[in-house]
């Protein structure tokens, strides 16, 4: 009997490989580093191409105690939410965070308006508290981010952090800071693949290396645009594998942030008595969103609930066995 050869998809390109975090020997103080990307085929299709660096799980913490998170979510962290350093430590020790994603929510003019120096101090305290690499995310106010992020970049110089986010209209300050301090950079585009590519081109035109860019195409939660995110990310990944170097960046997903905005996650038992335990419901909403996006080609999954993060890590482990 003649054996038929397996039908394999051949890809010309690969996802860029990016290492975050620098150890003492590399000019930083991290005790562990994280490498993402390098995929030479669609995710988890081992017979087509390799996934040398499986997706990693970051846990999102804030520089101030969140006042608008659902109770089920804040309860999962307990008192740790009062101190970014304690929160980061707990995220690593109890939820297995590969990275910490520090969101500087308290610097927003409407919610604290903390100064660049205060933000830099928080960055330093988190760096001191944990040995994993850091993602440092601004407050989504362009003007304020342009003041705050350069200070934070400098405070973490040499640590090879990932800073975000650069947009089509506001990228020069952040690119210059990341360039000077040796960080990687997140390029943000709102569910628009053409703008995603444009942002990458603009960043690289400033002399910033393509292999230090991570794409954030914004994340839609289950029931709230997940399929748009999925198709954009999938198309971007297929372009990368097809050899488009301007789309070959690893991808970050803000899963927790979006999943916990869904009413299915937030609703209390009083509001929706038939929807089941809110603690479990929200966590599963977040986990389901994350697991779906893994298939589209995602590399850094930013999670909020510790159990969702642990569940996702377990799922990734099983997918790459």
């Amino acid at each position, binding site marked *: 009997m003649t054996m038929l050869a397996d039908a394999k998809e051949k890809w010309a390109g690969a996802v860029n490989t990016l290492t975050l975090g620098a150890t003492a020997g590399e000019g930083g103080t991290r005790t562990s580093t994280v490498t993402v990307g390098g995929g030479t085929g669609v995710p988890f299709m081992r017979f087509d191409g390799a996934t040398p660096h499986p997706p990693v799980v970051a846990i999102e913490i804030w520089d101030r105690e969140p006042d608008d998170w659902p109770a089920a979510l804040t309860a999962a962290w307990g008192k740790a939410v009062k101190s970014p350093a304690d929160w980061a430590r707990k995220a690593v020790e109890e939820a297995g965070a590969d990275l910490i994603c520090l969101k500087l929510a308290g610097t927003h003019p409407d919610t604290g308006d903390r100064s660049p120096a205060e933000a830099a101090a928080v960055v330093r305290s988190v760096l001191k508290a944990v040995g994993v690499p850091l993602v440092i995310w601004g407050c989504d106010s362009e003007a304020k981010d342009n003041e705050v992020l350069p200070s934070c970049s400098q405070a973490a110089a040499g640590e090879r952090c990932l800073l975000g986010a650069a947009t089509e209209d506001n990228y020069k300050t952040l690119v210059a800071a990341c360039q000077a301090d040796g960080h990687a950079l997140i390029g943000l585009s709102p569910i628009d693949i053409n*703008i*995603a*590519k*444009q942002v990458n*081109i603009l960043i690289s*035109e400033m002399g910033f290396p393509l292999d230090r860019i991570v794409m954030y195409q914004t994340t839609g939660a289950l029931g709230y645009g997940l399929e748009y995110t999925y198709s954009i990310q999938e198309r*971007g990944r297929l372009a990368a594998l097809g050899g488009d170097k301007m789309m070959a960046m690893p991808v970050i997903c803000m899963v927790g942030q979006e999943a916990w905005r869904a009413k299915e996650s937030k609703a209390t038992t009083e509001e929706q008595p038939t929807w089941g335990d809110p603690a479990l419901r929200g966590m599963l909403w977040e986990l389901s969103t994350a697991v779906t996006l893994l298939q589209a080609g995602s590399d850094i999954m930013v999670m909020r609930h510790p159990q969702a993060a642990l569940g996702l890590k377990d799922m990734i482990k099983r997918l790459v066995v």
Partner: protein
Amino acid sequence: MLVIGERINGMFEAIGEAIKNKDPKPVREMAEKQLAGGADALDINVGTRVPKAERAAAMRWLIEVTREVTDKPLSIDNPSLETVRVGLQAATIKGRAIINSTTGQAEKLAAFMGLAHEFGAGIVGLSIDENGVAATIEGKLEIGMRTLAAATDAGVSIEDVYLDPIILPVNCDQKAPGIVIETIRQFRLLSDPAPHVVIGLSNLSQGATERSLINRVFLTMAIGAGLDASIHDPLDTELTNTMVTAEILLNKAIYSDSYLTAYLQGKA
């Protein structure tokens, strides 16, 4: 789209002189210029001014000089089996090679496919056989089919075969371009995965006045029909921009406002 730069050719005066004087500088410069213009591979042709007995040595020299500046695939452009073998030996020291080319006679196909297999090289199969250039769609398809069969027999992957329907100057035969377009469409249906289809674009406008315009209009039509490789002049910026735009319009690449810049940046 695989762009094979055509400018390292002894028929061009600067390269012809360089071969004669063994002066590597113009060759290196032309290689670098074409790569900066977006070439994915470089065609190497010693031309006809070099005496036959010296062509293999000239081919080796041209390739060695080009290999000093790039490890991109080199297309060994010569009809002689021996010269091609010498070229393959030199080119595959680092990087891949493409044999350019074989014609469709059974014995030639067997010999050249054997070489392609031996060196893991790509190979261009021309729509020419013992009866000359096939003038009809059916004739071109028949030779194309024979070429693919010979590749399979020799253990050469279909993905390494580039079928060339042969484009003749438009001022010689105005029916030919339309026949080539339809042939490209049908070449792509000959197997799954489809074979690559390549043309030597500049031949189309030989002797014509509006060379660049003719080339870029035809390239656009050919890309629309399924062409995925072309031997042409990557220094013709208008041609490159037209090609990149055609690929954007056919959704073969992702649009961005700076897509023309992105094309060249992505090659760097």
